[in-house]
């Protein structure tokens, strides 16, 4: 517990003014929520100063009016630090993280494909997991997508 607490204190010191919420519900698990504009600065501190460089995955969730992005960093004795922020659905532009964390390249491609998040500055936002014939602009993990419509698209392609 001590170690996790230490990291929480250090995070508060390093990125204190950017934090919307920080909590550690149990040992080896930290959640950090920031604003979209300060996210990049926060990750810079985490990667460069705290040397937490392993991004295990990025998860995206459709919350209705917003899309929430959660970046899961893993380090040390299986501690997971999740840094997250929300973006409104009418402006889905986010700066890419690939220049700071090269491992983000595939996760960002996937999110672009299934949720329509546009990562500015990404070296190639090509389709990754959907079939080649999949139409542009149809995002299967959006809440407004009907299952029947997706099936129709899939059977056509």
């Amino acid at each position: 517990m001590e170690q996790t607490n230490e990291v929480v204190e250090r995070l508060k010191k390093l990125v204190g003014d950017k934090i919307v919420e920080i909590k550690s519900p149990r040992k080896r698990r930290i959640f950090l929520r920031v604003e979209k504009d300060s996210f990049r600065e926060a990750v810079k501190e985490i990667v460069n100063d705290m040397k937490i460089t392993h991004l295990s995955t990025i998860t995206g969730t459709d919350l209705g009016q917003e899309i929430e992005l959660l970046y899961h960093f893993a380090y040390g004795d299986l501690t997971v630090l999740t840094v997250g922020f929300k973006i409104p659905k009418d402006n889905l532009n986010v700066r890419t993280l690939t220049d700071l964390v090269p491992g983000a390249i595939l996760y960002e491609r996937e999110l672009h494909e299934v949720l329509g998040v546009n990562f500015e500055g990404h070296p190639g936002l090509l389709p990754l997991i959907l079939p080649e014939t999949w139409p542009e602009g149809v995002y299967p993990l959006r809440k407004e997508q009907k299952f029947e419509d997706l099936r129709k698209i899939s059977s056509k392609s």
Partner: protein
Amino acid sequence: MTLSWARAKSPWLIHFNTGGCNGCDIELVAALTPRFDVERFGIKLQGSPRHADILAVTGPVTAQIKDRLMRVYEQVPEPKMVVAIGACAISGAPFKDCYNVYGGIDTLLHVDAYVPGCPPKPEAIIDGLAKLIQKKKEGDVHGTDK
């Protein structure tokens, strides 16, 4: 007769995952390696479908992998056999009716043996392969060059 005898002695495998979770693949690898050792039946994993007789498929067949599966299947020389390993390969299992999943190998190809399980034990896979060999011995293979 001689041909089917010869073929039953060296059923070479090509393994293809069509979007499975890797569970069946681990069991298949266990069946191939020394602990269960299917090589005593002459079954060997090949690196290229062009050298194989049996296409061992795991996974529910996603829309993206469909064309690749067909391409690999076409490269296997005749007479070829297909074995569907695991619940996904048989019916699509939890992914059945998913918008990007075909649901089972037999929606696309003729399947000669089904090995159920999630994942099937190596013993079950060996049983399925032994039944395939029996089919081969009897000359019960589909394709033009029997």
